């Protein structure tokens, strides 16, 4: 949950940079949006995908253990 909250804040920052470059298309905002903005957005998307894949993996393992419990006896 904490990682998703960080990803949401980082995405908001990236969006702010991109919107700034569109409303004031001068060299500094445009370059910031196309470098830092896109890097932040990529990081946030990566964090979101990490959380989703981790949750899917956990639920798959849980489901497998319920359906096929390993009984040592």
């Amino acid at each position, binding site marked *: 949950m904490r990682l*998703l909250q960080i990803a949401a804040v980082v995405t908001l920052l990236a969006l702010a940079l991109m919107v700034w470059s569109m409303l004031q298309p001068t060299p500094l905002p445009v370059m910031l949006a196309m470098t830092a903005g896109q890097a932040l*957005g990529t990081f946030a998307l990566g964090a979101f995908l990490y959380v989703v894949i981790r949750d899917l993996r956990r639920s798959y393992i849980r489901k497998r253990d319920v359906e096929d419990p390993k009984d040592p006896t």
Partner: protein
Amino acid sequence: MRFDPFLIAALVTAGIAAVLLVWFLVRRPALTKSTKVILMFGIGILPLMTAATGNVAGFHATTLRSFCGSCHVMTPYREDSDDKASLSLAARHARNQMFGETNCYTCHADYGMYGVIVTKMGGLRHVYEYTMHYRNMPVKQFLEEVQIRKPFPNSTCIHCHSTENPMWSSVPDHTSTIDRLRAGTLSCASEGCHGPAHPFSKEAKRLKAGGH
């Protein structure tokens, strides 16, 4: 602000994404499947659409004269192109709709296979040089001391003025210099021919050389 469908799309998608993300941060809902779907739009799909459309809008913005003229040392060049009464080569091209608001980019862009990339790499160099060396330089000094990095290529002129047209060939100065023009040893924009494109910068250099 100009109307650009890519700009509108970018702003709308950014706005919706921001609303979804603020909702997530403020309400802190449980991480259910529906919350993940909402976040997929807020962190993934909508920002990707903003980046894609914003890049197109951003690229278009970087081709505008107002963008080139946003660095103070480019002010005389921008003002000359804006001047409807100016007879400079650059201003006359700016009044042509084929060039219009993008006349700086149209004339200074490379037209090779990787022209856009090469041009943008050159633009990054300009931003670096401006930020590191010229951002505090007075315009007058800039006009006297700074010159174009490499000679303006005739291929840019020939891109439109093909040198194959009978009207072009009927000009004696053209036919007598055609080999030099095509080889690039004589510039179309040289003084006495069609240039200089930005006479005030050449005049400033001449005045400086003459000690005035």
